[in-house]
């Protein structure tokens, strides 16, 4: 679309379908997606607490589901979403406080979020397997 006065094309807002994914934009939407996912896990936490409160039988049902392969996959997803949102959230709080706005700092903190989230997820499951064994 040409500007009537200058003849130059008008700048268009980025179209998400053809916009090359960047670390900044991917982490931005990942923070939201992980937050929405963690909302569902918050509900799961309440269901687990209700199961504990209801007695040993309902706790056994909840525990059996968590121990199933689907439950373990969901727990692993929860761990990664949690650490991603946790680290991403701390990064956002630093921005809100006015720190880390240079382009270099934004990429450094972005890759730090990725690395620390992956590392803490692996570490958490390594400790979990070391403490509880592979069958839980």
């Amino acid at each position, binding site marked *: 679309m040409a500007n009537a006065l200058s003849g130059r094309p008008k700048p268009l807002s980025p179209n998400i379908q053809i916009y090359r994914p960047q670390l900044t934009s991917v982490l931005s939407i990942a923070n939201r997606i992980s937050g929405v996912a963690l909302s569902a896990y918050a509900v799961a936490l309440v269901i687990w607490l209700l199961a*504990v409160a209801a007695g040993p039988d309902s706790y056994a049902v909840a525990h059996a589901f968590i121990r199933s392969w689907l439950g373990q996959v969901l727990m692993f997803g929860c761990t990664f979403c949690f650490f991603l949102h946790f680290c991403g959230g701390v990064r956002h709080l630093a921005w809100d406080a006015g720190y880390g706005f240079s382009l270099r700092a934004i990429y450094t903190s972005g890759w730090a979020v990725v690395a620390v989230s992956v590392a803490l997820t692996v570490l958490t499951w390594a400790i979990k397997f070391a403490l509880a064994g592979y069958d839980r």
Partner: protein
Amino acid sequence: MSKAAMRSPLGRALGLGSARDGVEDWWRERVSAVALVPLTGWFAVSIVTHAGDGYSAVIAWLRSPVTTTLMTLLLITLFQHTALGLQVVIEDYVHSRIKIPVLVGVRLGCFSFGIAGLVAILRIAFGA
């Protein structure tokens, strides 16, 4: 155009608008985020160290005063943060007529699950 000129006469007279309450939800989301750093950190460490516990061990853990207190704080803060976060997501992506019903439903849902969680932990802590 100056900031004052952009406001309606009623808005100026009442003194309402973004200069007062507009940042409240934004601020509460940040405060709850700061509170969730230690609370979720404690929860993550606790869950990992109690992985594989039987029913009686879980009950004993949840009944200790420290756990009951921190779990209560966690549930309140977690569902407040969840409600505010989902609200922003809905406001950004839902523009049809279902926007207001979805906003109200999510807020009520977060409130209900938060209360249900509190009832559960307090029942575990103080129940027979």
